[in-house]
């Protein structure tokens, strides 16, 4: 009994390896976190795609409901965020695939890849929405 307590005390006093809080936030680190967060957001965002598809398969009334939601301010914000998350996760994924080949690890290279994926995701998202509004004939 005494031995178990001593062991428990010893294990609770063991030094722990440092975690996130001791590191200076770096862009690569923030983008790594954002990659995971966007992945989780896209996970639940698949519900929106499923809803859209089921509504289209169900009939005009159900489809009108989805269209109303997507057309609303909240709906547009969600869809805009979904677009950015999708593009950012895709570009971040490509960056990880490049790193998987053991390329792009030099300080300047990894900073460039990180900045490029962030800037690229913003530019592409705006382009997609601009093109989307053009296709639909302007904001309604």
């Amino acid at each position: 009994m005494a031995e178990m307590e001593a062991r428990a005390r010893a294990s609770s006093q063991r030094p722990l390896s440092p975690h996130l809080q001791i590191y200076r936030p770096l862009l690569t680190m923030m983008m790594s976190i954002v990659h995971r967060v966007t992945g989780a957001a896209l996970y639940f965002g698949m519900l929106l795609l499923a809803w859209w598809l089921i509504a289209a398969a169900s009939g005009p009334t159900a489809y009108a409901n989805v269209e109303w939601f997507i057309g609303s301010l909240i709906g547009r914000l969600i869809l805009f965020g979904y677009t950015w998350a999708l593009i950012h996760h895709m570009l971040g994924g490509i960056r990880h695939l490049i790193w998987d080949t053991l390329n792009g690890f030099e300080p300047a290279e990894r900073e460039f890849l990180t900045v490029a994926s962030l800037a690229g995701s913003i530019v592409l998202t705006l382009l997609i929405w601009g093109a989307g509004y053009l296709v639909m004939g302007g904001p309604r």
Partner: protein
Amino acid sequence: MSAPRHIVTPMRRVRGLGAARSGTAHFWHQRITSVAAVPLTIALVVIVMALMGRSHAAVVQILGSPLVAILMLLFILNTAYHMWIGMQEIILDYVHDELFKFLSLLGNTFFVFAVALASVFAILKLSFGV
């Protein structure tokens, strides 16, 4: 002196295959699905952009046409597997209580199957009518 019935060698521990009991297979599968996801995501964005603002009848016709339906099905199935692995990874990183971990992994599987099957069913219904 009888031999012990079970000897846990380091190899046996390795073959326990980690927290999810499946080793590094998922790491590789995540890479395969991520490569496939790039063209499929571009296809999804183009399809959705082309369909926004169209009438229900037009959307039904386009989503049910073979090329679009096949691309959508590929996107859904590829994404389902990718997101299933991804969420499992997140759960294994942050959920340490054995019961809650088990329930979270179960919930992940149920969610992915439900979302994927519902989406696939909708595409097939649009494709084959009825």
